[in-house]
């Protein structure tokens, strides 16, 4: 009878997976979680868009947003994604040193991105934009701040894995752990792709909505 026949499904690491779908439990969990996170960021991005052009006082996006600087940090985050996928590829192939190198590159690039964010936040506060100033400030800081929190978590997680890879506890045969971290990291990257488009590329020219006073600075 078919059902009692043994049928082995191997995953990409060569281990036998006997789950009913042939999918790894952990990876399925991660994808489902990412689906859930879609709703999380989706709600915040929707809030940003709802409140776009609704601030009553300045500074407005056009007064503070700086596309060149943010494109650099966007680029950094994109490259960290590349580094991430390379790290996974090398660890999977058993090329431990290269893999470790790329893991730590992700950590460094992620940290650079965070530094950019810290700089940007400081700069905005300097220009008079805080989370309390107006709707733009509120939605901007909370959305990018929570994204930053996600990045921070990813950096810590990858640091943990990087040391594991140094010590040899993260190897080709349990690279699934790195793959999970990678999925998370790429997800955080695509969220930034959307944020960059929505907040920066699309809204950066927004000035005072009709009826509101233009921002003259402090």
């Amino acid at each position, binding site marked *: 009878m078919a059902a009692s026949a043994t049928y082995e499904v191997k995953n990409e690491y060569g281990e036998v997976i006997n789950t009913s779908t042939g999918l790894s439990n952990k990876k399925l969990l991660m994808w489902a979680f990412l689906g859930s996170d*879609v709703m999380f960021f989706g709600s915040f991005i929707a809030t940003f868009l*709802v409140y776009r052009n609704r601030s009553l006082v300045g500074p407005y996006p056009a007064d503070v947003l700086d596309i060149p600087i943010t494109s650099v940090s966007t680029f950094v985050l994109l490259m960290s994604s590349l580094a991430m996928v390379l790290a*996974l590829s090398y660890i999977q192939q058993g090329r431990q040193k290269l893999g470790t190198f790329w893991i730590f590159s992700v950590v460094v690039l992620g940290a650079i991105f965070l530094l950019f964010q810290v700089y940007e936040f400081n700069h905005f506060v300097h220009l008079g934009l805080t989370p309390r100033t107006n709707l733009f400030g509120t939605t901007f800081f909370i959305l990018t701040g929570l994204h930053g929190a996600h990045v921070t978590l990813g950096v810590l997680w990858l640091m943990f894995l990087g040391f594991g890879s140094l010590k040899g506890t993260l190897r080709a045969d349990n690279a699934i752990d790195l793959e999970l971290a990678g999925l998370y990291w790429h997800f955080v990257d695509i969220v930034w792709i959307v944020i960059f488009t929505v907040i920066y590329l699309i809204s950066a020219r927004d000035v005072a909505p009709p009826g509101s006073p233009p921002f003259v600075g402090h």
Partner: protein
Amino acid sequence: MANFFNKLLYHDGRGWWDLPRTQWQDPNPEMEGPFGDGIIPIKKAWDFLTAASYHHGTPLFYVVVGVILSIITIVEVWAFNWLFLGGLLIPLMLVLSLGKFVLVVGFFMHLKFDRKYYAWIFTACMVVGIALFVALLLLLEFGHQVQQ
């Protein structure tokens, strides 16, 4: 019924608009679909790029994707100043970033190479999410505003 859909959506169970599949699923793919054998050179290049590990791409391939991502980003930043586009600027930006999104999800997150299940899960969530939030935006844009 389900067979009908299979026939409609897939060509004998193979999506003919799909990029050629990787060796993991399809060790010896037959050439079918609209381009017939014409696609073989592309396919060879593809196989070369994605042959490295079990079912993922080669490092070279990822670097190529990374370069494409960077180029799109540069184009975006550049296009930011194309004021002559007027109202078309926003759709353009959306399309460009959609491209980046798809590249990262498809290749860096391996959805293109991986079991379709994951793609289903993620796409389903994206579709529900986008539908909901677009509806929400429309409601708030044209909803109670009008009444005031």
